[in-house]
């Protein structure tokens, strides 16, 4: 996957230029490309994709909503759980940084899902919110990962922080089927999947093209944001290390990471 490639590149660059990481002003071309692709997707979705017959213009929010939901709920939080599990096994702090970065970006994507959903729901369903299985699951996952970020913010020691958040990330993934099962026993109102279903996708080719473009650009944006956040975490940590070694050499202050 793209993540492993960028991780490897990241490792190489930090090993070479560790002391100078701080003053590193490299342009993040990946992020720029992702933002451009995102804008192109919006332009195509609004201006160059046919309007849906029954829902009208409201349907267009689907090009933002569905990719954000898939990436935010499955890719981002899947990566949090997998890298958490791997961290507990391998104890590589880079895995913890990946989990933290992915959780932050995942919360942003899920927030987009929770905002765009009601905007679409009001004209189509006639209500902003309904306690449908998918909506409820999304909401509770959002809460779990907000808790994840709050937990990270409440622990000073990097080792403890990494272990605790890894445990929570893995348990969060275990929780998903249970919330899904229990809210599924309430009847569901959400539209059934149109793209990811056993039979062929039932979308006109033009809309399908826009959807795939949206998906690709959202994925690119996700990778770029996680990569940027991952780099930032590395810089913060090397700063902490510098502070620790300086204070240790001065010997005047206690060697605690300053935040």
């Amino acid at each position, binding site marked *: 996957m793209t993540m492993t490639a960028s991780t490897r590149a990241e490792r190489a660059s930090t090993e070479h230029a560790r002391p100078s990481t701080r003053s590193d002003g490299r342009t993040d071309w990946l992020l720029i490309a992702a933002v451009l692709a995102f804008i192109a997707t919006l332009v195509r979705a609004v201006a160059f994709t046919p309007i849906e017959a029954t829902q009208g213009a409201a349907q267009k929010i689907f090009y933002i909503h569905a990719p954000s939901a898939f990436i935010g709920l499955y890719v981002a939080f899947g990566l949090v759980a997998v890298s958490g599990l791997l961290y*507990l096994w391998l104890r590589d702090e880079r895995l913890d940084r990946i989990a933290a970065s992915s959780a932050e970006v995942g919360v942003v994507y899920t927030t987009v899902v929770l905002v765009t959903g009601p905007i679409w729901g009001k004209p189509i369903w006639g209500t902003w919110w309904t306690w449908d299985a998918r909506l409820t699951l999304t909401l*509770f996952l959002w*809460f*779990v990962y*907000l*808790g994840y970020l*709050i*937990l990270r913010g*409440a*622990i*000073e020691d990097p*080792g*403890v922080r990494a*272990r*605790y958040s*890894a*445990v*929570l990330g*893995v*348990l969060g993934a*275990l*929780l998903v089927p*249970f*919330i899904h*099962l*229990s*809210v599924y*026993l309430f009847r569901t109102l959400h539209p059934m999947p149109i793209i990811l279903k056993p039979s062929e996708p039932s979308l006109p080719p033009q809309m399908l093209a826009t959807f795939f473009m949206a998906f690709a650009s959202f994925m690119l944006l996700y990778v770029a944001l996680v990569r940027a956040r991952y780099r930032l975490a590395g810089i913060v940590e090397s700063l902490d290390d510098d502070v620790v070694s300086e204070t240790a050499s001065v010997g005047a202050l206690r060697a605690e990471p300053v935040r």
Partner: protein
Amino acid sequence: MSATGAPGVLAAAAMIARKDLAIEFRTRSAFLAALVFSLLAIVIFYFAWDATAVSAADLAPGVLWVIFTFSGLLGLHRSFGVEAADRAIDGLLASPVDREAVFLGKALANLVFVLGVQAIAIPAVALFYNLPLTHVVGPLLLIALLAAIGLVAVGTLFSAMAANTRLAELLLPVLSLPFFVPIVLPAAQSTARLLAGRPVAEAMSWLRILIAFDIVFVVACALAYPFTLED
């Protein structure tokens, strides 16, 4: 893994649970607080709704399990808070018992705590909400036990984690409540079915979720607990 002469996992867990319960029994502070909190909540919930619009029988299952969750949190927080004083947890970890046994012992004490609160809160709900509980006592006790096991497994682990953070008591509900959804929802739904006079079979799909949750999370939390200690 236990050293020679050290007690087995279950015996050690029972010993730790007895220690915690002895402390609780002699001080009675947390239990009384949780109990009074439950009774207050039961009364306040009743006045929060218009009793002529929503019948007490429709309100009771939700009230019962929401109170159950919140009073459980009160007890759970104390579980590792009591070890924080004078770093008593270090003594506990230095003793020749498995870490899983420490977790199971803590969880066992918490289970007794939660069930103790329930033993008074459920009759109190029946009394104040005028519920005919006598014909559903058996299934209701089963639901209470299943719900308590899941709640205590997750809550004990998160209590151990929260005790080591800057936010401490504030973090426990934030972490735990999403995990209590698959407990409160099935418990409240199956209780509502029973109170409506429906057969137990109708609540079975809800009970199955509770049982599966208990099995998965008791195992997962016991396995995860040693990771929250170390160094």
